[in-house]
């Protein structure tokens, strides 16, 4: 699995005929499923689009769901470019959310927002980054495959989250299901668009994208690219492989942990055991579909966010079961993956 070079082969996300064709194929297949389920495919897709963009609420929902995906994807990009396939975002987001919640709840409602917001954010990022330190060390010092170590630690993180919610961080209101106390109001990110869940934290995505764009244009960005493609050469030109790999992994972890804080302080308001809920894995997909480039990643995150928000609309307007919406999401992803590749090859990028 040493090679993730092929990953970079999925390039940018500008529109193209192949992508359109892929979308069409997915839509036709999904349409067949919709009619089998007894609803008009056109109504179904209308509902999907309306759910994602048709209302202020839908738009806010699309953006709010794209946000953690974008952050995770942007954060993991340097690692993927360096050929380090870390898929620990799921667990890193969980511990980030855990640390952020513990900080916010621990400081309590008496503290002002100017204190609560940054401390919780930093706690989340630090915890996410810290969760990446062990796999980073193992990879650098003991050559332990990072795909596996990060994957395994995801499960450990979830166990830790469950344990914390069952014990020291559990709600004091006596709820039977696992959850924390609600975050104090000043620890919550203010709403950006009334009538939606969109909050000010959404600005983190374009900022992070800009930071990534800058980084990729620095010599360091090139060094990581060389590291991913030819580690021997990277060593030769003085790139400190261990540091670069560990650094990238920790940055990816910090981004995921930060996304965990955004999730709790922006949307959930309470820490649940399901806080990551597959976001970590989807985030890596978003990075790949975005071609490991900032703009592509933002677009891919929006596509994912829209699909997820739209699926709700699809269910509610047409009565199509949630499971079918999942199938259609899978089909879209499948065909989009093929479409991007076809387009890339037509443009003759090596």
């Amino acid at each position, binding site marked *: *699995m*040493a*090679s*993730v*070079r*092929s*990953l970079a*082969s*999925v390039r940018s996300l500008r529109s193209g005929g192949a992508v359109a064709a892929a979308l069409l194929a997915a839509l036709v297949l999904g349409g067949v499923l919709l009619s089998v*389920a007894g609803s008009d495919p056109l109504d179904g897709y209308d509902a999907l689009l309306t759910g994602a963009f048709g209302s202020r609420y839908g738009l806010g929902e699309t953006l709010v769901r794209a946000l953690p995906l974008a952050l995770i994807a942007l954060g993991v990009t340097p690692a993927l470019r360096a050929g380090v396939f870390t898929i620990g975002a799921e667990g890193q987001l969980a511990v980030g959310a855990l640390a952020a919640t513990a900080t916010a709840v621990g400081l309590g409602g008496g503290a002002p927002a100017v204190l609560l917001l940054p401390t919780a954010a930093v706690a989340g990022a630090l915890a996410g980054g810290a969760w990446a330190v062990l796999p980073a060390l*193992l990879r650098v010092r*003991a*050559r*332990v*495959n990072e*795909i*596996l*170590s990060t*994957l*395994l*630690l995801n*499960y*450990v993180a979830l*166990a*830790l989250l*469950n*344990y914390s919610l*069952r*014990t020291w961080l559990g709600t004091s209101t006596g709820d039977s299901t696992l959850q924390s106390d609600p975050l104090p109001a000043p620890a919550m990110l203010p709403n950006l668009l009334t009538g939606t869940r969109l909050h000010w934290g959404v600005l983190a995505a374009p900022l992070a994208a800009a930071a990534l764009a800058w980084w990729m244009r620095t010599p360091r960005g090139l060094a990581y690219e060389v590291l991913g493609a030819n580690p021997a050469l990277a060593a030769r030109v003085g790139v400190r492989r261990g540091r670069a790999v560990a650094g990238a992994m920790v940055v990816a972890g910090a981004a995921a942990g930060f996304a965990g804080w955004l999730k709790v302080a922006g949307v959930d308001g309470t820490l649940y055991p399901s806080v990551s809920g597959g976001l970590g*894995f989807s985030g*890596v*997909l978003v990075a*790949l*579909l975005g071609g490991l480039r900032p703009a592509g990643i933002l677009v891919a995150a929006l596509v994912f966010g829209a699909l997820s928000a739209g699926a709700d609309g699809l269910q509610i307007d047409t009565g199509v*079961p949630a*499971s*079918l*919406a*999942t*199938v*259609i*999401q*899978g*089909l879209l*992803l*499948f065909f989009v*993956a*093929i479409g*991007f*590749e*076809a387009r890339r*090859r037509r443009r003759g990028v090596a």
Partner: protein
Amino acid sequence: MDAELILAGAVRLATPVALAALGEAVVERSGTINLGIEGTMLAGALAGAYGASEAGWGAGVALALGVGVFLGLVTALATLWGRANQLVVGLSITLAATGAATYLYELWRPTGTEAPNIPLAPTVHVPGLRDIPFVGPALFEQSVFSYAAVVLAVALAWSLRRTGAGLALRAAGDDPARAALRGVPVRATRTAALALGGALAALGGAVITVGYLGSFDANVTAGRGYVALAAVIIGRWSPWGALAGAGVFALFDSVAIQSGAAMAVPVEVLTALPYLVTLAVLVVVARGGRGPRALGQALPEDA
């Protein structure tokens, strides 16, 4: 805690994962990573349940194998002919298959109907030997699928070393461009591997429903496909290693279940332990050995 019980339970818990891992080992030896095995297992679990309830456990197994081959071929079509990213395609297959399994089960058994009657595949009892202390029940009183997994491991290990197909497979996974220069039909080889891998993953799923449970719900696989992926790596891409890797996880699961409330540690520690121990195992085995060189890479243009 009862060692005999834990061992026998570990074999049962390991069997579905082991079958999926055997298939995935072959797939990865040919140079592809298939993240779709989680979804394929669930599809196999449903297909197995459906076939078995309609026409007996054999039909269930056959139907599951068919579904697995189909999903394997779809993956091959997208990644080898469409050259789409393997990881994205795999996860999309898992997503779609998970949704489809839930949806189809609901069509089959709408709310308010009773659960289907799913006949179980037989358990093999070897009289006499099963009474051997500790290992008796683990080795000589298991579902036919457990024995099938061992037979498969033997067959796959032998084929990989000793048949032309095995050579072609290893060549395709190690260096597809050069393998193509040497006349290996790389795409066809990888496609065949994916079809076999899909079949075995689906079989692993069917084992859960048709081998043990006699029922289906959308959570029966519960992430076992990902455990199979881990087992392949722990097993250093060898069929025997895949069995062993599956066994490691199953053993801890079994210990956790059997110790139940008896242990003084929080349940989460038991949940996390197999993963931590696997990590420790990885640290020990990380040095030496290597995976297929071309694993996960896109097919070169001239192969």
